């Protein structure tokens, strides 16, 4: 905070400072108010989409004051983010947001889910409309460096695949030369698609839609020969086409899609909260703590478990959270494995194999740094 303030004083090239004799630095508490001119300018800038991003440095406090977490989620992807008929949200990404709310408030229901399309999601996070973006979003370098995001980790290791009609008798994506492919805009998907066809010297006719609903519908009506998205998405969307048995997913996985939640750049405290929420879920699985046995486990003598559940040390407070932050996450949402099984794995209609998403100790990639 202190550093932040000094920073602001330096940056505050307040053109009226000399004229407004009454203004003294430090007269206002936060740098947003540090210069009346900047305040006005900031409102104008907000009108051109955003500009008040400087207020984002205290997300944890803002969220606590507001009493509810705003979570940018997918609104139509079964397994990741989807409200049911009663308006109850479910999914792997939804669980992450519920876990953040459990860590902050001790209540996983204090979340407002904001459904976002692929192309609008980053603007929504940047402008402060949501506090965290958990919407099957691929972690890439330019999203880190150009879009002002900080990825919290990876909650699903994925890759891009294709779906085609069985009637086409296509066995491999390499046979798709000259095909029309329906794709959703604003995704890594459309970039990978172009790359893959170019690299394999195949002609391509892309038809781009703003949402996956539209892209999938166009594919279903025969506008395209193939539909492409993250493999996890294909599992989920194959269940939505008119007759799932008439469609197959091709074997090729053409890209790396590490999907993870993201927060705004420039707020390290909030970044830590989000990052350790995910780590807590993964560590809990590794330590064998589940929503069913967490109360039991709180009596354990295992120092790793004691630190995670807050019966030893003050690791919660260090993060700006209550002592029982991780206890609440596990109690209310469950560990990573439980969430996976329930939403996309064996306990869900998608029945996706854990594959790369197994714990590191079981031959997968899921690995979380320790709480200590």
């Amino acid at each position, binding site marked *: 905070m202190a550093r932040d303030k000094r920073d602001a004083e330096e940056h505050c090239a307040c053109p009226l400072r000399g004229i407004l004799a009454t203004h003294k630095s430090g007269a206002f508490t936060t740098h947003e108010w540090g210069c009346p001119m900047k305040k006005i300018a900031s409102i104008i800038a907000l009108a051109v989409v*955003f500009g008040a991003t400087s207020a984002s440095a205290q997300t944890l406090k803002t969220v606590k004051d507001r009493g509810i977490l705003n979570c940018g989620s997918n609104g139509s992807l079964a397994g990741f983010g989807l409200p049911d008929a009663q308006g109850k949200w479910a999914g792997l990404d939804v669980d992450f947001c519920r876990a953040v709310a459990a860590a902050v408030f001790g209540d996983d229901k204090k979340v407002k889910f904001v459904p976002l399309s692929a192309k609008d999601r980053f603007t929504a996070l940047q402008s402060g409309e949501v506090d965290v973006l958990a919407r099957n979003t691929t972690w890439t370098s330019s999203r880190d460096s150009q879009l002002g995001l900080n990825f919290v980790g990876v909650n699903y290791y994925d890759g891009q695949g294709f779906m085609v009609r069985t009637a086409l008798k296509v066995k491999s994506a390499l046979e798709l030369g000259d095909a029309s492919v329906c794709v959703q805009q604003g995704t890594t998907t459309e970039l990978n698609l172009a790359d893959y066809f170019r690299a394999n010297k195949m002609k391509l006719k892309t038809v781009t839609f703003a949402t996956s609903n539209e892209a999938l519908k166009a594919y279903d009506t025969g506008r395209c020969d193939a539909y492409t998205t993250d493999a996890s998405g294909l599992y989920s969307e194959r269940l939505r086409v008119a007759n799932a048995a008439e469609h197959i997913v091709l074997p090729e996985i053409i890209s790396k899609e590490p999907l993870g939640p993201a927060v705004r750049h420039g707020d390290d405290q909030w970044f830590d909260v989000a990052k350790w929420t995910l780590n807590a879920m993964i560590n809990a699985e590794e330590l064998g703590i589940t929503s069913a046995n967490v109360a039991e486990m709180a009596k354990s003598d295992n120092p790793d478990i004691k630190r995670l559940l807050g019966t030893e040390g003050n690791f919660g407070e260090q993060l700006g959270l209550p002592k029982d932050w991780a206890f609440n996450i596990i109690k209310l949402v469950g560990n990573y494995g439980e969430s996976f099984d329930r939403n996309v794995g064996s306990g869900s209609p998608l029945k996706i194999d854990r594959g790369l998403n197994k714990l590191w100790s079981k031959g997968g990639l899921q690995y979380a740094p320790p709480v200590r």
Partner: protein
Amino acid sequence: MSIDLRAGSPPARVPFYNDPKVRSIAYQVALCAVIGFLVWGAASNAIDNLRKANIASGFGFWEQTAGFDISQSMISYTNQSTYGRAFWVGLLNTLLVAAIGIVFATIIGFIVGIARLSKNWLVNKAASGYVEIIRNIPLLLQLLFWYNAVLKALPDLRDSVKIPGGAFLNNRGLFMPEPVAQSGFQFVLIALAAGIIGSIVYYRWAKKRQDKTGQQAPVFLVSLGLIVGVPLAVFFAAGLPLTFSYPEAGRFNMSGGIEVLPEFAALLFGLSIYTAAFIAEVVRAGIRAVSHGQTEASYSLGLRSPPTLRLIVVPQAMRVIIPPLTSQYLNLTKNSTLAVAIGYPDLVQIFTGTVLNQTGQAVEVVAITMAVYLTISLTTSLFMNIYNSRIALVER
């Protein structure tokens, strides 16, 4: 009077700061300075905040590789082209659908508008029905209807509808033979240009003569002969210097020929039909605004119904029609941004959709897009205003 009063005393010397002229200029300058200052402050603040949030700013992205494909492009474009080029592709696609849409909407609109005034009960009611139905259904729904209903009804590639003359219709679009000019075709074009110039000259001459002597000339027939007949004769004389490249079916798609995407067709239909309903009302109102006495006067001078409409009613109605017609044209252009719902790659879909998302530069991209639509709208208004002032009532 006031001059008389002052005449006695020497003219009062007003200090410059009390001079109303100087004052008003000073106020203007001050206002401009304040506005400029606010804009500058907003811009520098935004840049500052963006930098703090680690969000790229500036226009450097314009030259970077786009990396995505676009389904329809009037200029050469590949996924290796730049974001800047993608912008031009989107802009041209917007202008294409708007320009053709305006032509279609105007034609349909005038026909329906005049039909609504028809004394024929069926024609009249059909036109009213069209206007009432189309005007009262949201455009977005109409676009989705055209896109999904039309798409669903179209057959697969393998069962393409063959249209005589070598065209094909299927759910990938309409594929037409593409004319390819052979050597010698340039003479046809020269003949066409000469024909157009010739008929303009002839029209002017005929009009002058009619003004002077009252004699009418067969302008229509002569122009037809000059514009169609002469180039056609040259075409035959040059030995039919034109071939066609026909679309052919491949494994997945048709290749060769001219391709009209279903997205484009749906957007064009939707926009033209919707806007035509409004134009029809504008036209009807315009014609109604011409007092019936004008028609009666024309009849009593011995003019029949068609020339009365053409020479008396329509020219006067145009004065009423043009201003609202302009705003319908602007509406059509702006409504073309709904393309985003049906996957037509217009400026908004490409630029504020994909480019904004891939670069994350919302401020720049949105500002450019707004500037573009403003420019298109102001240019359209400008031309319509010029046209309007030419046909406006000249008071003598």
